[in-house]
């Protein structure tokens, strides 16, 4: 069956449908990571997005349960130059993800690079294109859209029972790799829904603001939560969590033209002068303007990749130190954060409460 990608500017890309049938809408974005297709599609941060893989062939090594970054697939659609089945394409179909193979992905990438990420519709089989186009123009654009509610856990759960320090994760669309990294670093990890009260989180030794999808600016409740935590408990923000930390401390965020998505982005750690090759997936970024708190910058476009607020015991990374997929260069920064947590804090807090 043939399929079509329709972009909001009217341009079209054809392909062969290899996933689920149907029509889906989303923001068309591309990732340059050469490995980790399954991790990418199950990453909640891709909610509401149609992912174009620049990797020439996708699906080569099949699928495996250990490669899921969450309990389901989140991407609205998948575009590939050359899909390889049957495992991968069957997996997509079973998860109701429309997917096209044989797409001129490079042309699409060049177009998105030039004109910015766009709303798009992925259509398989026969469909009335004017209706699809109408649906497309009614689809909300990514800027201003809050998506966390769709991916955050409905109820708290424990990921790792024991550890040297107790860590609470504010789930904004958290990847399993992040939880795994925290646990391996020696933390006991509990995950909370995004609407949790700050007071519950503040009782932990440290709070992680997870990654997640969408625009950070409309997440007023979560921003308030972060503001309440600052100074109370050490905070580590990752990706969307990083953006929330920035917003909570009076900084601004903005939408990047087509985002950073890949596994090869170099980031300069300003203090050490070291370069980290990082995994990235974000469409929004923190505005810098000579901010002394900026600890990491992108060597690709100079945007903010990390902030450090020692007086508030808070730091955050725009990139993904937990990888999954991507290089492990920055994983040690999560371990270092866990190591620095003072397990006594909880007892002090309990004592004070009593």
């Amino acid at each position: 069956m043939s399929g079509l990608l329709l972009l909001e500017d009217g341009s079209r890309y054809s392909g062969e449908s290899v996933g689920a049938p149907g029509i889906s809408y989303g923001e068309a974005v591309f990732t340059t990571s050469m490995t980790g297709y399954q991790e990418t599609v199950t990453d909640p941060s891709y909610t509401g997005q149609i992912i174009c893989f620049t990797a020439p062939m996708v699906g080569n090594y099949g699928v495996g349960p250990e490669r899921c970054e969450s309990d389901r697939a989140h991407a609205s659609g998948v575009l590939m130059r050359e899909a390889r089945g049957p495992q991968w394409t069957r997996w997509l179909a079973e998860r109701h993800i429309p997917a096209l193979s044989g797409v001129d992905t490079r042309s699409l990438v060049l177009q998105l690079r030039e004109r910015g990420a766009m709303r798009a519709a992925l259509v398989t089989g026969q469909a009335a294109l004017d209706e699809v186009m109408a649906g497309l123009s009614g689809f909300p654009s990514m800027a201003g859209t809050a998506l966390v509610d769709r991916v955050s856990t409905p109820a708290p759960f424990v990921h790792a029972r024991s550890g040297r320090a107790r860590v609470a994760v504010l789930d904004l669309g958290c990847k399993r790799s992040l939880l795994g990294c925290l646990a391996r670093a020696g933390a006991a990890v509990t995950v909370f829904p995004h609407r949790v009260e700050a007071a519950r989180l503040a009782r932990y030794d440290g709070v992680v603001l997870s990654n997640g999808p969408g625009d950070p600016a409309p997440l007023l409740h979560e921003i308030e939560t972060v503001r309440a935590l600052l100074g109370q408990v050490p905070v580590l923000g990752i990706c969307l969590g990083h953006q929330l930390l920035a917003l909570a401390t009076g900084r601004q965020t903005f939408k990047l033209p087509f985002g950073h998505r890949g596994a090869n982005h170099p980031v300069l750690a300003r203090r050490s002068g070291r370069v980290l090759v990082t995994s990235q997936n974000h469409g929004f970024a923190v505005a810098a303007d000579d901010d002394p708190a900026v600890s990491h910058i992108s060597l690709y476009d100079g945007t903010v990749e990390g902030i450090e607020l020692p007086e508030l015991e808070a730091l955050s990374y725009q990139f993904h130190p937990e990888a999954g997929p991507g290089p492990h260069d920055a994983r040690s920064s999560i371990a270092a954060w866990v190591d620095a947590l003072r397990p006594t804090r909880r007892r002090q807090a309990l004592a004070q409460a009593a």
Partner: protein
Amino acid sequence: MIGQACEFDYAGSQALKVLRADGFRTIVVNSNPATIMTDPGFADATYIEPLDLDGVADVLGRERPDALLPTVGGQTALNLALELDEAGVLETLDVELIGASVDAIRRAEDRELFRDAVESVGLRVPASRIVGHLSELEGVSLPAVVRPAFTLGGHGGGFVETRAALERQVETGIFESRIGQVLVEESVRGWDEFELEVIRDRRDNVVVVCSIENLDPMGVHTGDSVTVAPQMTLSDDAYQQLRDAAAAVIRAVGVETGGSNIQFARNRETGELRVIEMNPRVSRSSALASKATGYPIAKVAAKLAVGYTLDEIPNDLTGTTPASFEPTLDYVVVKFPRFAFEKFPGSELALGTQMKSVGEAMGIGRTFAEAFLKAMRSRELDAGSPTPWPRLVSIPDGVHSWFVRELESVSAALQRVTCVEDLVSDDWLALKRLGLSDAEIGEQCGLTEQETRRKRRAWGVLPSFRRVDSCAGEVEAASNYLYSTWGEADEALPRSEPRRVVILGSGPNRIGQGIEFDYCCVHAAQSFRELGYEAVMVNCNPETVSTDYDTSDRLYFEPLQEEEVLAVCERERPDGVVIQFGGQTPLRLARAVEEAGYEVLGTPYGSIEVAEDRGRFGELLQRLNVRCPEWGVANDARQAATVADRIGYPVLVRPSFVLGGRSMRVCYSRREVEAAMRLGSEVPTLIDRFLEHALEIDVDALSDGRETYVAAIMQHVEEAGVHSGDSSCVLPPQSLRPDQAHEVAAIVRRLARGLGVVGLLNVQLAVSGDAVFVLEANPRASRTVPFASKATGVNLVAAACRLATGRRLRSLGLPAERPPDRVSVKAAVFPFARFPGSDPVLGPEMRSTGEVMASAADFPTAFGKAERAAGRPLPSTGTAFISVRDADKDAAVPIAAVLAGLGFRVVATAGTAGALARAGLAVERVEKVSEAAGGRSVLDLIRRGQCDLVVNTPQGSGARTDGHRIREAALAARIPCITTIEGSSAAVAAIAGSQSEVAVSLQEGIPSYAQTA
């Protein structure tokens, strides 16, 4: 800086470029004249000197540089750096070793130190032990792999399954190793093999430039493997594990700045990992990785060595991102090795841990299969040549099932095509997207390539061109590096110059067509750019400078096949296509290019055809009143014998249209002629009168069609009968009288005019008595062009390009025709040691894979230096073994006399000993191999290291003759073994008459370089 060969020429010239741009005074030492890096314009001082301790120490002493960069010059350079350090040269001269410290080099190269380093970061190498003696093999489990320390291309190593094989391999390996050690290790045969190209800077930042997956699993040397980049079969988790391991290893070994290649074996089922090897330097694989990704590893490594960090070096292709941005690929690259087994009859076709390929071709496509098929057909195999993986369907054992499925689906799709008429646009697109060529589709349907193409084009199915930009399109890149694919948009590039030329390269290196032609193509690109043209390069050899995107205005990395070349021409609409410089490869395409309506620049193709067609060439010679040896053409053995009888023996028998003298034989009788014809195929065969004891002369000349400039007259040291590519050659000629030289020049002028040459002309002549004969003429760049250019100081290619654009010879301002003051010798380098079983004797079939050059004030000194540079240093004293065929017995006397006079102990077998004794020489008789009993034969002498020089002219070549075994033993013992009388005379003269001489750079030696460079 020290350099080596093709891929290292690419690395070296890149490094020179950036270091000079940074304001460093650069000095290059390399013995290979066919390299771009040794061009006088590339460095501030260029020394074409032997790459041995003395040669390099000499240069260092003269130049007193601040630092030595050995990491872009391959294993030779690294070994030399260690030798220089051990000898205290670096310390005495206060030269800093940059790129890799001595400690790091040792940790990477010494097996035990390497194992310790790897284990210190929690990784494993295959279980192993170091063996320096056969007695230490107790308890080794089989199968095992034997790897000698410090050798080129895994030289002297191998996979063994039996006890006897183990002992044999260990013995050779110990011999081959510079430190007399081999490693006997756990066999990981059948595991998957991966390589990572890693770069580290002085701040400990590490990036992985490229992952490479080998199709042939462990057990086949990676140089002989079909490889693919990026890796295709590993999940992110598995790949990141390799990435982490690679970073840990480069840190543990302590390569502080620069690139390394790290090889891993990975068990396909269990995921177990072993670190196999690390090269703490730019390697063959890194040249491939550079071309595969567009990331210039050698350039970056050189900048890191002088103190930059990865975030400070910009990426050339994007201009905006730094070198710390790891390349990401939106295409697939496949490398195919090019073998030359047909040249080494008697050697086994099997691949192992010892590298046997002589070149490589790379294909780029949007899918694995597309890239694979492009690389496969880029090999340009001669019909019927034995090679591993000859066709798509002949998939070797052990290849990962993913690749097998991909390739089988292509075969299946091709099988389904029965009639081209049935195909509609979508079918064509589907077939082309699989990577199938018009020729392959046509063959399936019994149609010619051209007819097939016509059908396809009628459906509007045309290729599109994509850029290699190192970032999968994420960053805007002004990249000029392109490849073709199907069914996609074309990335149009602005054409800045109104005029442009397409230069066809020389494809994969092979015997008879190597780096010399790449040198010519690179110069052609430079010259046309200087002349105001856009230079567009088409080539598929990843090792070369011509496929560096810096060399031309646009680089099309494409197979040098009719289909792809015409597609490039159609897109570029060039003012001319340049076919003179890439050897035979472009010539094969010339007719198609002309028929498609493009102009061939310079000498028209018709002239080339005249020169190649013996009949027409013979008529031309007659018309010009130029002599050639009598000849005839035969189609079978009977005809051949008749022709040979007519023209008289000995005769030279050779198939027409061949490269490097393939299947050429000298025959002394009717019986031999018939035998030679049976070896060859059905192609028309040329039979020439073979001129014995003639002086062979090679001339490189330039012509504008009217006037001719005889740039270089060279004399072959070995006489006609040894292939010109294998013969040593000297410029100016040492035994040509002025009147003979004058006549040679006059003949060349007549020929140039008669052929209508516009550009380069190479003529081979034989001088016998007072007569001068023309053997052949090639109106194009020859193998000797780089040597001749460097020896005379005239850039022949630059001049030829100017002529091709219509300039007159006299407007070029060339220096007067006159032999240079210094004597230059070119000597061939042979790969015999890689092909056990094949006879290392020189003959009409070319077998050398490289060349070296040396210059000095006199011939003996230059010859001695050239032999040193070729890795065959002549002894100054010791024992010389002489055994010559009957015809050479008289000529052997003066050679033996000089040796005896120099204090050599002369030993000989019965016949030769008798002849020498009769001439009054003191000679010891030694037994022939076949007469030997009890360890008294010459073989034992050689094996025990009691012989320093072997002179052995063959009675007849062939398997297991005495001579063959002697030559093989000498080869294994690394004793100079000379198989011709002329070569022996030159060697003896060199031993007797070599002067010690201070190294002189090209720039000092030849003042005219100042003008032409």
